[in-house]
């Protein structure tokens, strides 16, 4: 068990440290000027030394990411279920969904600002726009591939459609659902940043980075990128955590003690 934790946590940390080392070697080894690429330490300091100014912006980005993720996940799940249950709707809606993902997000931002203003809402919409799609596709795929014999068995027992859905179809879709959520989680922060770039009139993490870039403060640009990445990774890991907790049968041979008195 300890060895497993070491492997699952230790190795990713090690590869992260390795990445920083490579960064350091390249910058130092090739004598890269600090206005082109800072050393990792400088990027870190650019974040920590401006922490009081950055923290509210970070909170803003987190809020947009998380709200957008939940809206997108809920929308994605609902659409997946509806399309799986009503094949006619699937044929009508599916092409529209694919179309929605072909629209460049940047091109979407301008009209969204016109409609929704500069509030948090357009960012949430953009994040949800990105997140819902992998969720819908995976849920739809999961629901349409539930073992027909298992569904027949439920029918033989005399189960209602609702109970079959709750006790068979939904749990059978857990794995693809979480695949969709994990993809959505990694892209969510990107959506929030795009939203901030295109639909901010005031302070935001994306604009902070723009200003730093305009001032040739490369360390702050890199530092901000690291912060954005950290938000994305943290959110992804949280989703993975929920998955591990919610689907114990994928890793365990015996149920947790507290599940059954």
């Amino acid at each position, binding site marked *: 068990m300890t060895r497993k934790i070491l492997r699952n946590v230790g190795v990713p940390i090690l590869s992260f440290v390795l990445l920083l080392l490579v960064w350091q070697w390249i910058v130092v080894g090739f004598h890269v000027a600090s206005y082109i690429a800072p050393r990792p330490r400088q990027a870190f300091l650019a974040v920590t030394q401006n922490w009081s100014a950055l923290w509210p912006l970070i909170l803003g980005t987190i809020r947009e990411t998380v709200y957008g993720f939940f809206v997108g996940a809920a929308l994605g799940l609902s659409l997946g279920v509806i399309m799986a249950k009503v094949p006619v709707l699937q044929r009508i809606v599916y092409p529209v969904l694919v179309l929605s993902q072909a629209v460049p997000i940047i091109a979407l931002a301008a009209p969204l600002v016109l409609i929704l203003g500069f509030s948090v809402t357009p960012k949430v919409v953009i994040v949800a726009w990105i997140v819902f799609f992998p969720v819908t596709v995976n849920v739809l795929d999961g629901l349409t591939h539930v073992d027909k014999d*298992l569904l*027949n068995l439920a029918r*033989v027992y005399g189960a209602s459609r609702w109970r079959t859905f709750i006790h068979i179809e939904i*749990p*059978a879709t857990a794995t693809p659902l979480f695949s969709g959520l994990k993809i959505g989680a990694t892209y969510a922060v990107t959506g929030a940043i795009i939203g901030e770039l295109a639909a901010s009139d005031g302070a935001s993490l994306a604009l902070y980075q723009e200003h730093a870039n305009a001032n040739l403060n490369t360390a702050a640009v890199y530092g901000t990128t690291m912060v954005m990445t950290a938000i994305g990774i943290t959110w992804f890991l949280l989703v993975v955590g929920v998955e591990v907790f919610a689907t114990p*049968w994928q890793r365990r041979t*015996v149920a947790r003690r507290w599940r059954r008195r």
Partner: protein
Amino acid sequence: MTLLELRDVAKTFGDTIALSPTSLAIEEGSFVAIVGPSGCGKSTMFNVIAGLLTPDGGDVLVKGERVNGTTGHVGYMLQKDLLVPWRTVEDNITMAKRLTGRVSAADREEARAVARQYGLGDFLRHYPTALSGGMRQRVAFMRTLVTHQTLLLLDEPFGALDAQTRLEMQQWLLQVWRDTGRTVLFITHDVDESIFLSDRVIVMSPRPGRVVADFANPLPRPRTVDTLIEPAFIDLKTKVMRLLHREDA
């Protein structure tokens, strides 16, 4: 007493006659084997009895009541164990209750008692992925048992098991059948299995799917491995094999 009766039950899929008009009466408490090659309509017949398919003609009667196209009156088990991976052994056994009502403390206690009685007491909190094929089929059968249906339809339940495990499972099934007094309708394409288990062997044949013979099985119980070499066994096996092979030619 007749538990199940088929009266001229027929089923067609497009141009294919899956089951030509078939009449059959199954006595309560009996063990009836249905043997035949694939395409002989045995699974179609099962699905009609279970209510998954509505017959094109004729009636299915359980305890004298017409049940055409309705479900909820049989226990049903396939070659695939259909255990759900997200539930423990105990929760898989109580699955039917979960799907139709509330799983009570008594249901859980019953599931645990059945599992203990038939050697799976130590695995109640295991997920099915941790079990062997034979154990999984036993759990699937317990799940069928606790539905308290008198009539059990078993469609090649041991078809995916190796020969050794299969023989163990056959003897186990006979023991459970003796303990619980259920009525079993057992599909197989294995002639030995059909004779070893049953009171009666029904032979079916394809194109169109139909019953071609209905043999009473004279072999005494309890059956052991020695049963497989008794003259009466060989005799019945010969008759069944001739029928099946005549159809092949």
